[in-house]
């Protein structure tokens, strides 16, 4: 994991806003060589400290419904169950957790019926999944795209 220094933060400041900025543009703004910018960005990518992605208003799902699904899973089957869950295209986020659930997933579906089918049939058919707890998001108040998990 990179320990960012001031130059890294300066570079990130530009990239967080607009990742399409060229290395040359960043270099001239910071008064550094283009090669320095290129090498630093390469290092940050290589050790998975940053990634570049596109954020859009339009999702690949119509009438998207965002849902939180907590799962209780037989602990010896936790990793295999969660790896299976991660394969579902409807699941946008999944993590094993300690606390109120054994795993927590964030899913995007196009209807409440689709949620029922996904959770009730497909999640429940995964070996190890014992019970699910679903909540439907009614309003998003905050989402900070600047931080995420680079996998």
């Amino acid at each position, binding site marked *: *994991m990179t*320990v*960012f220094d*001031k130059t890294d*933060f300066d570079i*990130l*400041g530009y*990239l*967080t*806003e*607009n*990742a*399409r900025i060229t290395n040359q543009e960043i270099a001239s703004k910071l008064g550094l060589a283009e090669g320095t910018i290129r090498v630093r960005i390469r290092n*940050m990518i290589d050790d*998975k*400290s*940053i*990634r*570049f*992605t*596109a*954020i*859009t*208003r*339009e*999702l690949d799902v119509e009438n*998207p419904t*965002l849902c*939180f699904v*907590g799962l209780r899973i037989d602990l010896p089957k936790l990793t295999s169950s*969660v790896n299976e869950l*991660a394969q579902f295209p409807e*699941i*946008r*986020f999944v*993590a*094993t957790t*300690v*606390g*109120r*659930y054994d795993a*927590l997933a964030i899913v*995007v579906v196009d209807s409440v019926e689709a949620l029922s089918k996904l959770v009730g049939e497909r999640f429940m058919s995964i070996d190890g999944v014992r019970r699910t*707890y679903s*909540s*439907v*998001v009614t*309003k*998003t*108040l*905050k*989402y*900070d*795209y*600047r*931080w*995420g*998990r*680079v*996998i």
Partner: protein
Amino acid sequence: MADLRIRLQTRLDLFLKEKLKSSGLSHKSTYFIVERGFGDFRSGRPERRRNRKRNQQDETRMDELDRHIIKELKQDGRKSAKAIAEVVSVSAVTVRARIRALEKSGQLQVVAVTDFAAAGYGILVMAGVEVEQRHPNEVGMELAAFDQVLAVNLTAGAHDIEMLIGATDLSSLANFLENEVGTVPGIGRLSPAIALEVHKYQSETEAIQ
């Protein structure tokens, strides 16, 4: 490490504040990063928004080529126009023009996402909140104002609010819960789940508003 993270946060927040001011959105909170990204698009009366044109086409309509380009950018936001052009079978000039148009109409933003750990958040907590004797929206807005609260959603289900908290370590988490979250009136019960291992993370879900 914590200092560095705070420096990055401060630097970015200053940057965002300036942007907000110049886009006339300064009355909205700095914390609603999503609003900033798409502020130009959302602000203004619907009739005016409708009248803005992109290539004689309704700006809210993306075509197949746009979607194809975006798909490539989601995988690697810094993929060159030339490399994208090869995949989508058009010229690099067209790819650049499409990206510019999508950015200009507020439908696309290509960004760097910093890993939680690299940003200094060693611990991620997904906390469900049961709200008592207060509107969950008000409680959620107050929670959203904390830097360490990375996401806030109102939900219908077992909890009224689902939020994501980032902390450097357990003692800073304890301090945050006690001295910051604890001061927000209306929080009846907090049910946390600490993330052990994140198996999947796609960051485009913020498009849902």
